[in-house]
């Protein structure tokens, strides 16, 4: 009875007021044959003390970014989270409230969302951002569906092979039963060739999906790719890395039509993959095709500025079967955390963190490839990740052996890319120190040496 308030006396008084003899009678509408005989088969209840011990025991069985050194990336990163983010986001007024259906009682959340939307437009250079999606992958899928609706084209959706493979899988799942064909353009050189795109794109193509920096960490030639898309009236959807915009040109300045991102790196925990933050921003002209919640500014009856959810006729609760998306919840708490993070780092902090990522990544790449066994798979500029090829082709042993030494060395690419089965992806955030990077290089260089010489 951990969180219940009704005493036995309360229950009796309430039943009397209802005119029921027992609580059981309140369930009379459930037919007898459906009533569970006996109890659910669940483990016994735990007190707070027991639960804490139990979960601590299970937590202690895991490596974490606290007791291991994390060089893992691929859409989730061990970035620094300032204390203010947790302090504010853990206020009950934020995290135990819900969707601001009553604006008079939700100005805190609504203003925070309006500020989040503005921060995302400042970050991306796009005209308008919505109040968030589940994660980067579903934001990309919803952007593709949005492009299909906006162009009215029921044909092709092109995606670069350098887009995160899980994002491409999610887009494929979402398109499975819709009138559109997803085609992946190979990127053997580590980035999409604008000429190759121009050679295949046509007027049946609704949109092109590109990631920059891409899944391999490499930069794409977004302006040339966007020009190729626009030449045939297709939309450009760009998956971006929010922190990269401390240095890189913004999607809006590159001419992109819809920009989406994973917002985990903006003050949100890795949490084994979720909850995360799907960022989606677009041109003004596309706003009525944009899914998800939107906060808007207006005035109240006294003429004071205030905020409401707006353009709700786009959404499922009004449009029902005609809605192009069924999204209902957003990731409000994670959007709040992202907004606090962006406010804390500001323009200078964003430039600093991006620069640290670039410098440390370059250093790590140089240190790792100092061993003859390792080379870079792609000779291209990168932001905070790069692909390492193991000439011995023993990636999974390498990763396991490093993990046993407390180093989470990289993400093997074998499950996703046949031609990169001897490769792994290394990410270096601003949190990694020179000692840790040197440790990684040493750990990799010393692993499996006997085997490696026999294959040399």
């Amino acid at each position: 009875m951990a969180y219940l308030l009704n005493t036995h006396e309360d229950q009796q008084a309430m039943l009397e007021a209802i005119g029921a003899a027992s609580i059981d009678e309140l369930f009379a509408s459930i037919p007898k044959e459906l009533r569970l005989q006996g109890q659910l088969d669940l483990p016994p209840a735990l007190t707070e003390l027991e639960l804490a011990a139990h979960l601590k025991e299970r937590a202690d069985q895991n490596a974490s970014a606290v007791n291991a050194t994390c060089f893992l990336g691929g859409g989730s990163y061990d970035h620094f989270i300032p204390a203010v983010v947790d302090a504010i986001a853990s206020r009950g007024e934020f995290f135990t409230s819900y969707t601001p259906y009553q604006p008079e009682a939700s100005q805190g959340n609504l203003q925070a969302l309006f500020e989040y939307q503005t921060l995302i437009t400042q970050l991306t250079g796009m005209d308008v951002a919505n109040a968030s999606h589940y994660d980067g992958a579903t934001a990309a899928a919803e952007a593709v569906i949005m492009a299909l609706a906006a162009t009215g084209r029921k044909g092709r959706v092109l995606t670069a092979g350098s887009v995160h493979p899980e994002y491409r899988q999610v887009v494929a799942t979402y398109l499975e039963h819709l009138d559109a064909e997803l085609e992946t353009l190979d990127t053997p050189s580590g980035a999409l060739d604008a000429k190759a795109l121009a050679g295949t794109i046509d007027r049946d193509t609704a949109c092109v999906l590109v990631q920059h920096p891409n899944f391999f960490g490499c930069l794409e030639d977004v302006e040339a790719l966007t020009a190729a898309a626009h030449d045939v009236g297709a939309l450009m959807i760009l998956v971006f890395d929010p922190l990269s915009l401390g240095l890189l040109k913004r999607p809006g300045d590159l001419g992109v039509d819809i920009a989406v991102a994973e917002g985990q790196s903006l003050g949100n925990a890795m949490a084994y993959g979720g909850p995360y933050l799907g960022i989606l921003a677009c041109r003004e002209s596309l706003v009525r095709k944009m899914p998800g919640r939107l906060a808007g500014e207006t005035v109240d009856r006294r003429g004071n500025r205030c905020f409401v959810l707006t353009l709700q006729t786009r959404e499922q609760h009004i449009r029902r079967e005609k809605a192009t998306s069924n999204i209902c919840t957003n990731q409000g708490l994670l959007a709040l955390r992202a907004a606090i993070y962006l406010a804390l780092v500001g323009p200078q902090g964003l430039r600093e963190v991006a620069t640290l990522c670039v410098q440390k990544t370059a250093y790590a790449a140089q240190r790792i490839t100092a061993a003859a066994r390792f080379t870079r798979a792609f000779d291209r500029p990168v932001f905070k990740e790069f692909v390492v090829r193991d000439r011995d082709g023993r990636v999974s042993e390498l990763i396991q052996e490093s993990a046993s030494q407390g180093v989470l060395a990289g993400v093997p690419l074998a499950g996703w890319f046949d031609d990169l089965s001897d490769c792994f992806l290394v990410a270096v955030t601003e949190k990694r120190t020179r000692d840790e990077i040197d440790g990684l290089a040493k750990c990799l260089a010393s692993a499996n040496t006997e085997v490696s010489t026999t294959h040399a």
Partner: protein
Amino acid sequence: MKPEDLLYATTHEWVHVAADESGGKVATVGISAFAVESLTDLVFIELPEVGRQVKAGESFGEIESVKAVSDVYSPVDGEVIEVNEVLRDDLERLSQDPYEAGWVAKIRMSDEAALAELMDHTAYQKQCADEAH
């Protein structure tokens, strides 16, 4: 145009048919005052594309209030030859002058059969009285 002289669809669009210079029939389509009033606080209209072929009964536009969205249906068969662009920026015209300045689209009719399905003003007024009840 006087409301008494128009034809009406059960979905609340009005129609006025006239001959163009070449002798073809052009239907001017709008939304009845009753429908505009019951939608309240209009905020947005999506107009059909000029050149689009439509069938009678097909949705060819949408009209939105703050918390509702309604289809606008073509009452006739034909090709959309003109839309009332002014409505995009001045939705008030729909409520202030639904039968003149608030027209929605003009359709060059390919077939007149659909006209037989439409109501005259008296029949339409009866429908509205029933719905308002």
